[in-house]
């Protein structure tokens, strides 16, 4: 159990964050590590923005498994509301209990002489059905109730409605929620909160103000090579270099969807499966659909394949 609660030990330094995440296979840039370190030190959520597939969600997973914390994930979508994100009353259970306890209630109220007295007695029992046993905790409340803390991932917050953002504000700034019938529930241990967004819509200033804002873009070549190295087993150094070089060239094109890190990793896996040791012209052509997700993008990239492969190969010689 000792290693179940490492959150009690504060983070030592930014380097410790970097190496800790690296041990989970997440190669973090300096900025990401700084953000994680700071969010712990000044108890602030991190709002991560960036294109799809650069490892926003992975970051939360890596932090959770590194710190040995439970990860609670709340996937946002249009129409997500309090009842699905925060808590809900167990209506069926309440109803069932009232039915079962009917006789009991009769006994309790039997002693009362007047209607007024009965009402008074009923008032004493009234709150029974709105107690904690009848609350169904949803992800946000669950996160607050974890005794050892947890990593709360609020994924794709930009997909939710603007009203939902306001609901989050109390949790993000004070790590507590107010349930009208129960009062305020504060976190046993402030969770590490990660919010991700694809910038589909602009988030409110109030939400942004409460967060550290981290933008993860496409990584630099060296960093991406390290990421591929840690994620794809058995890839030769030559192939890794050429592959990342090639992808960086592809990103200079005007595409509908730029290949991101997750595509790089997928492609590297495919090439390893095909037992490639070097980036070959024909092989790139055949596997380009792993990298590019639109027909028009593939068509736009095809004429450049030869030059890019040559360039990547040259880079290898000098790099």
């Amino acid at each position, binding site marked *: 159990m000792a290693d179940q609660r490492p959150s009690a030990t504060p983070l030592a330094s*930014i380097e410790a964050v970097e190496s800790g995440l690296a041990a989970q296979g997440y190669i973090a840039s300096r900025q990401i590590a700084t953000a994680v370190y700071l969010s712990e030190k000044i108890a602030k959520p991190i709002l991560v923005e960036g294109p799809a597939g650069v490892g926003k969600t992975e970051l939360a997973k890596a932090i959770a498994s590194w710190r040995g914390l439970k990860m609670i994930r709340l996937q946002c979508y249009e129409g997500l509301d309090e009842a699905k994100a925060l808590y809900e009353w167990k209506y069926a259970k309440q109803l069932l209990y009232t039915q079962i306890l009917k006789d009991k209630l009769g006994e309790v109220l039997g002693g009362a002489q007047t209607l007024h007295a009965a009402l008074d007695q009923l008032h004493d029992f009234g709150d029974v059905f709105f107690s904690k046993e009848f609350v169904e905790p949803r992800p946000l409340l669950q996160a607050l109730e974890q005794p050892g803390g947890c990593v709360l991932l609020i994924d794709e917050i930009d997909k939710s409605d603007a009203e939902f953002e306001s609901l989050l504000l109390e949790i993000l700034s004070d790590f507590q929620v107010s349930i009208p019938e129960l009062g305020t529930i504060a976190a046993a241990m402030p969770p590490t909160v990660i919010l991700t967004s694809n910038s589909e819509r602009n988030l409110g200033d109030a939400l942004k103000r409460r967060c550290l804002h981290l933008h993860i873009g496409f990584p630099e070549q060296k960093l991406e090579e390290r990421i591929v190295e840690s994620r794809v087993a058995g890839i030769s150094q030559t192939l890794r270099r050429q592959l990342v070089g090639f992808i960086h060239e592809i990103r200079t094109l005007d595409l509908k969807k730029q290949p991101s890190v997750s595509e790089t990793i997928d492609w590297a896996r495919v090439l390893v499966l095909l037992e490639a040791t070097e980036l070959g012209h024909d092989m790139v052509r055949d596997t380009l659909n792993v990298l590019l997700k639109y027909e028009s993008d593939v068509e736009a990239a095809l004429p450049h394949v030869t030059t890019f492969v040559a360039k990547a190969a040259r880079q290898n010689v000098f790099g």
Partner: protein
Amino acid sequence: MKENLHRFFRAARGAGVHVSPAESIDAMRAVSTVGLSDRGLLRDALLLTLAKSEDEKKALGACFDLFFASAEPSQTDDEAAAGDEAGEGEDESRDESGQAVPDHSVEGADDSRLAGLGALAQMLLSQDRAAISAAIASASAASSLSDIRYFTQRGIFSSRILEEMGIARLNDDLETLTATNPALAERLSALTDGLRENVRDAVAQALLLYGREEAENLRNEILRNAPLARIEPQRIEEMRALIRRIARRLRERYAKPRKRQRRGHLDVRRTLRRNAAWGSVPFLTAWKRKHRERPKVIALCDVSGSVARVSDFFLLLIHSLHEVVSDVRSFAFSGHLIEVSEVLETKGAEEAMQDIMSRVGFGSSDYGTSFADFERQWMESVTPQTTVIVLGDARSNNLDPGADILRRISERAKRLVWLNPEGRMTWGFGDSEMPRYATFCNVVRQCATAQQLERAISDIVATYH
């Protein structure tokens, strides 16, 4: 260091990054956690806490580099001060550094000729560069250089800083030296010129850092009130940006409350049916939804001559209001009328306007024929929910004004709004048919500047809420 950070926040605001007090507190906490030793780390920490979008990050990064490039020489001073602070009060340490520096320079110069001269003269002659820039920095702080806003203030701030540094005493020294030691006097006067230049540079830098916000505001204010029709070609891009900002503001104002107010009365029938399982005890309630009415806009834009530019911006604005306005159909006319909605939706602003202009632009306007064109082909699209906006100068070149068609449009539509880029004074003079048209319009407005354009559209959208 606190002082320095505060100045940095002000510079950041100047660079267009919104820094609220809460954010500055966060930044302070972050900085105290990561420390000041690593510049890259400091930069990351500030970017994380202050900048809230990618653009802001870029702006703040540039601002950081500029700020700490200028602060570099004074950094040693700050560190010394910070070191002293641990033991003594802040005021004390400042006094000390103020006195200690010249003392030190005298020792460094080791020159008896310097005795009897003012502190500033000694400092200059011993060429203690660090001390000089430290003195400039502290003098700029004393004369609150960070309050500089406009480039016209450069002179006054320079002289204030020099005064603070003791330029008066320096001039006295120069005079006495010219009599006693001309060679030294010459050297000193050359050094003084150098000092003036340094101070000027410091002020220019400060203006760059702190003055940007005001300058931007001033420029926007001017732009907002500039007549759209006579805007210089090189400022059109800026104007487009301004119009886009206006559109965003209108969207934010009008897109939200609509959602909130959608729940209407209790729907008794559906509530009973839904709760049939519990003997119609209403555990789950069903609500009627208010019918939401989003503005439907039909815009008729005159694109002849001087009105074209206003129409351009107007169309840009109304078409960037997708979230607020559900349905926009745009028509352009001068000699005759065509529908341009599709062109505007599919092409970029520049290209679309060129396309429209090549098809109907630059003719002499004929309101009668254009209205007739509209009535013949598109009259059915005018419904009781529609707001019809006509943008034009109502100068119909003495041709048939077609006022009766306008009356029929007005009768069908919810509202008829006329936006006229000309001033009210000229309405009705020459070939202007404005008074005749005005009788059929619900609203007639002058609309020559971006600000008037914003108000006009804001009013139109507001009537639906």
